[in-house]
């Protein structure tokens, strides 16, 4: 009886050990690929050359159904040189990478990719300027 319990104990221990050694998959950027399939943007902002936001507060709308982001930049903003950044749902990533100086005189497209890298949703970001 005692020996069966010991076998069971070590069997479970071995199983745990094997499972814990399993490698989590990572993508080409070294980011963890998880099981999450949620795929949406939660926040968007634009910075000017002085690294301060250029967007009018309360005017940014993220439509996760229509996959659009609309925002209004302050009067006088040099919309040709702004730096975007955003927040997305847990484990998701954005392509192409944000955080680089971008010309927003035309709408820009960014794809949010879910944590499991199976769901892709392309958002169109349109920024208008106060006149």
């Amino acid at each position, binding site marked *: 009886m005692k020996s069966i319990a010991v076998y069971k104990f070590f069997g479970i221990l071995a199983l745990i050990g094997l499972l814990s050694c399993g490698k989590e998959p990572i993508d080409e950027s070294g980011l963890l690929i998880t099981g999450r399939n949620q795929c949406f943007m939660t926040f968007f902002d634009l910075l*000017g*050359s*002085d*690294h*301060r936001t250029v967007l009018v507060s309360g005017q940014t709308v993220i439509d996760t159904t229509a996959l659009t982001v609309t925002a209004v930049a*302050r*009067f*006088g903003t*040099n919309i*040709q*040189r702004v730096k975007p950044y955003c927040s997305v749902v847990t484990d998701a990533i954005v392509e192409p990478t944000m955080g680089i*100086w971008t*010309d927003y005189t035309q709408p820009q497209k960014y794809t949010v990719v879910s944590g499991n890298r199976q769901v892709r949703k392309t958002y169109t970001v349109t920024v208008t300027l*106060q*006149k």
Partner: protein
Amino acid sequence: MKNITYSVLAVLGIWISTTGCQTKDVTPDSFRNDLLKKTTGPAVVGDRIEFAYALGTTEGDLQNVKAEATIAGAKGTGFSGYSWYTNRNTGVDQPVQTATDTVTNGTVSSAKIIDVATNKAVTLRYYYYPGEDAKGKDVSFRFSGTSSTGKEVSYQSPTYRISRMDMKRSLALVDGAKAYVSIADMAVYTKAEVEQNNLANKIDFVYIYRATLGTGNYAFGHAIVAPSNADYLKDVTLPTGLTKSRTAIDKRVDVKDAQLRGTTGFDVYIDDLDLQQTTFPNAADYAYGFAADQGAFVKTADGAYAAYVYVNSVNNGSKSMTISIKRLKLN
């Protein structure tokens, strides 16, 4: 053989354990000196490098100090006759005269220590003002001191590179008056001065103040605008023949250059490298909403100069702004 090895090791161990930790009985030099460079920013023409040169003796009296620069400094270079101590009651540094006959002749500065009976150790300030001819060159200093015993001590400083930048502080801009700034001249002009002196092709930006602008009366404030920008200068009567040059202007709010600010406490400095390497992709030809301590990187339309324009102060009432400029010639 083995026994011999053990014996040698044992003897060696005893010798090391008995002698290894002994401190050498070093007699300190009776006459010593040391040097501290107090200035942390770049050596720019128009500013100074400050050194604190200390020397002390336990034999005889201190006599003279000397500093020899490899390149002669500009006016103001030399020793100060004062040392400083901190008043323990107020926490404020107080000067006390410890030297006289502070003379600079060419590359050599000297001073004579006074009250030698009590001034057995003093720290003197030496100020070096880089001259125009030193720009881009390396300079070093040899400090030395003599005592009444005939001994001399000296200290050779490292080499310091003198900046190629030009610096101009406190240019007063007034909307509609002294509003036309030339980076090449590092000067501000009125419309009449621009016209009279044929400076129409040397103006890089215009200063304006508009509390609000646009159909929605949006906040605008203090701004610098390149002559190329028709939108923000449409209500300004520009000097006749003003070249519509497109100066690249890139605003910053967090570059509080200590030299342009003219006060201590901000150890941020624009250096040659910053102006050499700053790029202006898609940069605007204006910057607006300036407040004190903000500024903008600027590149002239002909690519000849890169500069940092620092805003010292703004005044909405008088529609005026005071700026300081660091400039580097690029080609």
